[in-house]
């Protein structure tokens, strides 16, 4: 029965996401809704987590009733937007898409056997995430007795509540604090992210490229290993990766819905971990640099994301919660920084080495790097420059954390290096098929130089 509760809650989240797609403009007809329905699951999970995390701050518990209301409201709004469009026809997928889907289903089923029996035994999983999820489930809200309690400082109290809220929702749906079945939610996040990428990219990327890329992501050993730990790094990476791909699509097509999807998912990333702020800021910086003429849309998107994060920041300020690992203010503590500047290059190199480890991430990052260069060589600018900016800024930002921390850097780096890079590698992997497809599409466009000459 517990598994039925977990799957039922995820079904409602899918429906909530399905209703959100027309509201974001991602589906302007029933036909488009069917074609882009792969985005619904991840959007629904992220939306439910955001709503639950913010309601938890004002003593409102988010369970079956709230989730059903959210799904009903979303579906009603979505249906209203599509009321005059013709009924959908089921699309006929090509054989590559069918084969790719079958292969992914086989991988997920195999992973599912491991996730269904895994114990919750890794430190951060129980000491941070499941503890907070259990507290939200037991108390119904972010009770300061725990969420601001001095005896709970070890649990990174300043981390936002998206993942614990999702866990609490699952516990309510299962009517139990079940630390075994909880792992399946992490696997379902992978399913949601893969479906979202397929839906987001299938009309821009040839199937022969898209499906191997999705398989490469799913089969990267670090994705399995890190998801199974029930840490937040890969969930953050998956949500962020789809947001990065949506941002990349917006750069190319200027479709407002792509930016809408990116905004929703960036909000999810912001509310998952503090590092999410670094990655999201790096992405907006990249988008702004290469699409500065569209700055108004970007400012609106960034403002929405800041508003979603604001209630949590107010809570953190009210209860004076601090990061126990580092403080960004130490960037200006020149006595502290002066003796540690050498850590930066070491951290940068170490994290880089982890990102290109084929036994952890396959060839995801090397392939991304090659395609950025190829795209630049063929005259593409916006997409490869966006890719370069957000990855480099994120990489530098992560390296800087090891400079400003008061921990002994080598221990801190050793204990975190394999997982903090997940968002960079997964974001790169999500952008890779789009980069390759756009490079191919750009093959016959005249070089920019000759265009300028001929126009003068």
């Amino acid at each position, binding site marked *: 029965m517990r598994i039925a509760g977990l799957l039922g809650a995820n079904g409602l989240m899918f429906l909530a996401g399905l209703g959100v797609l027309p509201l974001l403009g991602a589906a302007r007809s029933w036909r488009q809704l069917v074609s882009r329905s792969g985005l619904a699951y991840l959007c629904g999970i992220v939306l439910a987590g955001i709503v639950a995390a913010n309601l938890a701050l004002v003593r409102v518990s988010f369970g079956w009733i709230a989730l059903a209301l959210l799904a009903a409201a979303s579906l009603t709004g979505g249906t209203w937007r599509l009321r005059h469009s013709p009924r959908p026809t089921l699309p006929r997928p090509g054989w590559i898409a069918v084969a790719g889907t079958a292969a992914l289903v086989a991988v997920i089923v195999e992973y599912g056997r*491991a996730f269904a*029996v895994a114990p*919750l035994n890794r430190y951060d999983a129980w*000491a941070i995430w499941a503890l907070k999820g259990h507290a939200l489930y*037991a108390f119904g809200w972010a009770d300061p007795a725990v969420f601001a309690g001095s005896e709970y400082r*070890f649990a990174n109290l300043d981390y936002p509540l998206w993942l614990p809220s999702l866990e609490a929702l699952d516990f309510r749906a299962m009517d139990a604090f079940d630390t075994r079945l909880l792992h399946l939610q992490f696997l379902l996040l992978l399913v949601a992210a893969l479906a979202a990428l397929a839906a987001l990219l299938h009309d821009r990327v040839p199937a022969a*490229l898209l499906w191997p890329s999705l398989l490469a992501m799913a089969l990267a050993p670090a994705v399995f290993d890190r998801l199974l730990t029930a840490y937040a790094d890969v969930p953050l990476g998956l949500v962020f990766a789809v947001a990065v791909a949506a941002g990349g699509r917006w750069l190319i097509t200027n479709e407002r819905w792509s930016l809408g999807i990116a905004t929703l998912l960036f909000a999810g990333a912001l509310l998952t971990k503090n590092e999410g702020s670094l990655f999201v800021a790096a992405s907006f910086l990249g988008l702004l640099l290469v699409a500065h003429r569209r700055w108004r849309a970007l400012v609106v998107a960034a403002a929405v994301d800041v508003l979603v994060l604001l209630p949590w920041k107010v809570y953190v300020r009210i209860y004076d919660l601090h990061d126990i690992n580092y403080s960004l203010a130490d960037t200006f503590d020149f006595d502290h920084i002066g003796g540690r500047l050498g850590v930066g290059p070491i951290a940068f190199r170490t994290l880089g080495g982890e990102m290109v480890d084929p036994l952890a991430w396959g*060839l995801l990052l090397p392939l991304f790097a090659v395609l950025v260069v*190829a795209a630049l060589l063929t005259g593409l600018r916006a997409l490869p420059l966006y890719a370069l900016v957000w990855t480099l800024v994120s990489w530098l930002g992560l390296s800087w954390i090891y400079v400003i921390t008061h921990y002994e850097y080598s221990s*801190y780096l050793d204990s975190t290096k394999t997982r903090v890079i997940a968002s960079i590698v997964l974001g790169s992997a999500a952008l890779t098929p789009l980069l390759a497809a756009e490079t191919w599409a750009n093959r016959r466009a005249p070089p920019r130089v000759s265009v300028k000459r001929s126009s003068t």
Partner: protein
Amino acid sequence: MERRLQGDPRPPRRPTLRLKTAAASLVTAALAAATSAIIGAIEVLPRVEDGIARDSKLTGAARRHAAADRLRLDSAPFDAFRATLRPRERYAVDVPPGEKGPFITKGEVVRAYSAFYFLPAIQVQAADRVFRYRFR
């Protein structure tokens, strides 16, 4: 193509660097992604099977104490104390600092595990109810 269709006698121009690079990118990307998936499968699928073989044998108690076992803590005192707690009841933890790890002491690990294991009871600095734990 247009010139050839219209019978242009000149030989077709060699593909530009741009065209070659674009074609190579697409083919390389598809092949590299497939190679990456194969490398991943070779590496990860045995791990999946190992995990299933190892974890599917865990009993309910072993699963409940998995975190304590990983930390090499004696789970019996935790079970005994938890059985006496009520939801939202305040308790304190009395534990010696123990050996120092890279970030926190063993005593702090016990406090953290108590906070997790005794929820929905609430850990505070001082209370009438005290959980005492000693390292062997």
